């Protein structure tokens, strides 16, 4: 009886990881404010849901963005027939311009270098196919997005070698860590073809500073290996320090541009994961041409190309969107991290992304990954929140969890926060900061005082109250 391929029957798809287990728990019992108020709240999905009203308003004012409306149907036939893997020129121009704006117009992107892919998922796989043969390796700083195990390895046969990053320096990438990983790969008989960095980082929610990026660029040039910069969260940087892109750094440091490739997408920055808009931007002509041929396997629907081209070629809309998005993310992030800090839960100080890297090391019964899994199961089954355990991101230290905050409305977030509070207060009052709670009998008054602070915060105008304990960001000050 003939078999299927090893790829199909193996576990290379990576879906047996706990990252996905939590999703399954959510899917069997999803939270709904009315129908399932005790359901699991999804905090494991890095979606950006904060700007839909803003975008919908634009759509209503621009029916021509759809080739199916009476205003747009004049373009229907040519759009429906357009399957050229170069992509629509206006789409490429719009995306190139958007990428530039997101980087404060400090760099320009060439529309002729824009190559489409089936989301960033398709982009990563394609880049891996172009840069490495089966059995060769890519270096990846930990912790990293679990999907990479599938996207970079599954059908390509490429290996991943972790670059260990640690909490002692806030998980920054060090030269030593890079060298150690490179050496280890050599010892294991693996030929390293490249380094992939995600900046802003998933799951950390931090950006890399200029010096770190320069050091990375020097490293890849010395070793003559590729550098893949996954910058899909570029527009989600909501407070300083400002985002610095690889595309800027290569202007400042001597660099062989044939080594440099950027992966981009509209799934996070705009909140459009369903539209499958992935982009490969390579400075290497051979890679660009090959990736373009491979894009046949995941072209962006021309219907969607037209929509995105119309939207992103509206530069006023884009400018307003970038500001609005940052503001919404900032507000949500600040409130969420503040609320957690009130019950003694810290997180890595971050300024981008759609999630926080939450520090629950103090709650571990054992400082081991088993201890982390135990805690995680409690969070899923008792607290009913789907958060993602650090081990699923290949974090080197147990006790860290990624928690998404931009994929829900305010009410759901309040429910999530109240569950967290209840859990902490019930189980571990010792971790509550001394200034807020000296004795267990203060528990009740504590929760009352917390609610009062929350009311202060959530003023009718929806902006931060002047009485808020949080420092106000320049962004908020500028608006009010």
């Amino acid at each position, binding site marked *: 009886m003939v078999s299927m391929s090893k790829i199909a029957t193996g576990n290379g798809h990576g879906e047996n990881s706990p990252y996905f287990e939590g999703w399954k728990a959510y899917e069997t019992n999803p939270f709904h404010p009315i129908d399932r108020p005790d359901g699991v709240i999804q905090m494991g999905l890095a979606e950006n849901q904060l700007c839909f009203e803003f975008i919908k308003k634009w759509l209503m004012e621009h029916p021509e963005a759809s080739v199916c409306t009476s205003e747009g149907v004049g373009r229907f*036939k040519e759009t*429906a027939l357009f399957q050229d893997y170069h992509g629509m020129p206006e789409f490429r121009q719009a995306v190139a311009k958007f990428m530039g704006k997101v980087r404060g117009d400090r760099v320009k992107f060439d529309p002729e270098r824009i190559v489409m892919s089936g989301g960033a998922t398709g982009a990563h796989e394609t880049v891996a*196919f172009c*840069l490495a043969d089966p059995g060769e390796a890519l270096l990846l700083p930990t912790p990293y997005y679990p999907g990479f195990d*599938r996207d970079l390895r599954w059908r390509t046969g490429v290996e991943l070698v972790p670059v260990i990053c640690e909490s002692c320096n806030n998980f920054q990438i060090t030269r030593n860590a890079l060298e150690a990983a490179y050496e280890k790969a050599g010892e294991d008989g693996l030929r390293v073809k490249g380094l992939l960095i995600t900046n802003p980082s998933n799951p950390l929610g931090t950006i890399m500073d200029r010096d770190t990026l320069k050091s990375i660029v020097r490293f890849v040039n010395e070793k003559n290996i590729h550098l893949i910069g996954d910058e899909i969260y570029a527009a989600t940087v909501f407070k300083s320090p400002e985002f610095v892109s690889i595309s800027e750094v290569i202007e400042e440091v001597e660099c062989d541009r044939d080594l440099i490739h950027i992966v981009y997408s509209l799934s996070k920055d705009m*909140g459009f994961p369903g539209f499958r808009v992935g982009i490969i931007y390579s400075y290497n002509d*051979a890679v660009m041409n090959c990736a373009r041929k491979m894009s046949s*396997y995941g072209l962006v629907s021309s*219907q969607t190309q037209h929509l995105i081209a119309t939207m992103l070629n509206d530069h006023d809309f884009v400018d307003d969107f970038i500001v609005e998005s940052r503001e919404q993310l900032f507000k949500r992030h600040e409130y969420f991290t503040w609320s957690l800090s009130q019950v003694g839960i810290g997180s890595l100080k971050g300024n981008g992304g759609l999630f926080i890297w939450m520090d629950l090391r103090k709650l571990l019964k054992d400082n081991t990954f088993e201890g982390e899994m135990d805690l995680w199961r409690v969070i899923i089954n008792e607290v009913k929140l789907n958060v993602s355990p650090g081990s699923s991101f290949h974090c080197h230290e147990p006790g860290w969890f990624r928690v998404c905050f931009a994929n829900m409305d305010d009410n759901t977030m309040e429910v999530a926060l109240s569950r967290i509070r209840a859990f902490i207060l019930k189980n571990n009052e010792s971790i509550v900061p001394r200034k807020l709670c000296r004795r267990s009998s203060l528990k009740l008054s504590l929760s009352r005082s917390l609610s009062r602070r929350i009311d202060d915060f959530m003023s009718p105008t929806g902006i931060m109250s002047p009485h808020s304990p949080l420092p106000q960001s320049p962004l908020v000050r500028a608006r009010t």
Partner: protein
Amino acid sequence: MGLLSRKVTCNSHGQDSSYFLGWQEYEKNPYDEVKNPKGIIQMGLAENQLCFDLLESWLAKNPEAACFKRDGQSLFKELALFQDYHGLPAFKQALVDFMAEIRGNKVTFDTNNIVLTAGATSANETLMFCLAEKGEAFLLPTPYYPGFDRDLKWRTGAEIVPIVCTSSNGFQITESALEEAYQEAQRKNLRVKGLLVTNPSNPLGTTIKRNELDLLINFITVKEIHLISDEIYSGTVFSSPEFISIMEVLKDRKMDKSQEWERVHVVYSLSKDLGLPGFRVGAIYSNDPIVVAAATKMSSFGLVSSQTQFLLSAMLSDKKFTKEYLSKNHKRLRKRRSKLVSGLEKTGISCLDSNAGLFCWVDMRHLLSSDTFEAEMELWKRIVYDVKLNISPGSSCHCTEPGWFHVCFANMSEETLKLAMQRLKSFVASITINKQSHQELMNTRRKNRTNWVFRLSFQSFHDREQDER
């Protein structure tokens, strides 16, 4: 420069083939009725442009689908966020219903067995990733769609071994051809994992007959291998014999509980039947849950845009529309094909008798200077550069006999087709005149030489020869 993978540096992407070179020439000098009336007419692109009026009229009557709305409610947010690789349930249902309707509802399809992919290009590659790997091969009847060389082999590492079909029996698949291909694979040390057939066939434009389908099923049963049936042209069958899907044959043979049932997989797409290649809507249909599960995960690399799924779920759920569309599509294709065929006949060129597809398989063997592929290339270059028609030479489709050409008829207006036929007629007439005058010239030369010889000897021989010419 850092080293790249072998995939970048080799040419298994297949784009150096003549199939694509013709396109490149076309792109440098494309015909336009007004702006470039002397440009190259594209007849190498299997697009269906005959029914856009029907699509546009549906859109005008269904404005909600255009604006992400249903029953007055905006679904924009839900759709923008929808990235579930299981696909939009309403779209999958509409798609399987449409597939059943095309097959006269003689077979039905289960939404649990369908996987959505970014076009048939992605579907074929994904299936290959699931079923074969390096050192393994699929058997394909020739001639076949040139894109398969890229889609099935490039990144998967799998090989294709041809099942040679010839004009002696209208290019039908025979048992001996199947067996010979299987042996050839063994000789090359390749493990055969399956067959892939295109039904209706590209480039032949014919539907596979029931006895051939039976043959295929018998073959995969004996060899215990897979069968992929690429049925992307199933909605373009415009005259008899009726389209018979491989699923129908399995059902008729009561094989729906057999092992073979799980080894037969269908590929579909809306690029040809509905004329929407830009929207990237493909599908894999399999009765094997392991294939479905693996292919579903792989579809992450090329999902169908939720915006497109939503639009098409509304369109294909409109059964009144689909009925009218399929019927008119058939009529118009039949009419357009007959225009091409009669145009060619006037030029003394015949085609394989076909009942489907967006193209004809044209016999220009009599126009070749010799029965070789060099002569075919020579003729093809003249047709592209001098006659200014981009048609595809049979060698690019791996045909084993020189002189056949793939000519599309549904991707242009009737006027453009007429012009193309006129150009071809003039060209053929000029070759014929040239051939005649060439022949005359050859005869005159021979005569003069003989004259010269016999002038030296016998005057009477010369007189006789002149009479015989």
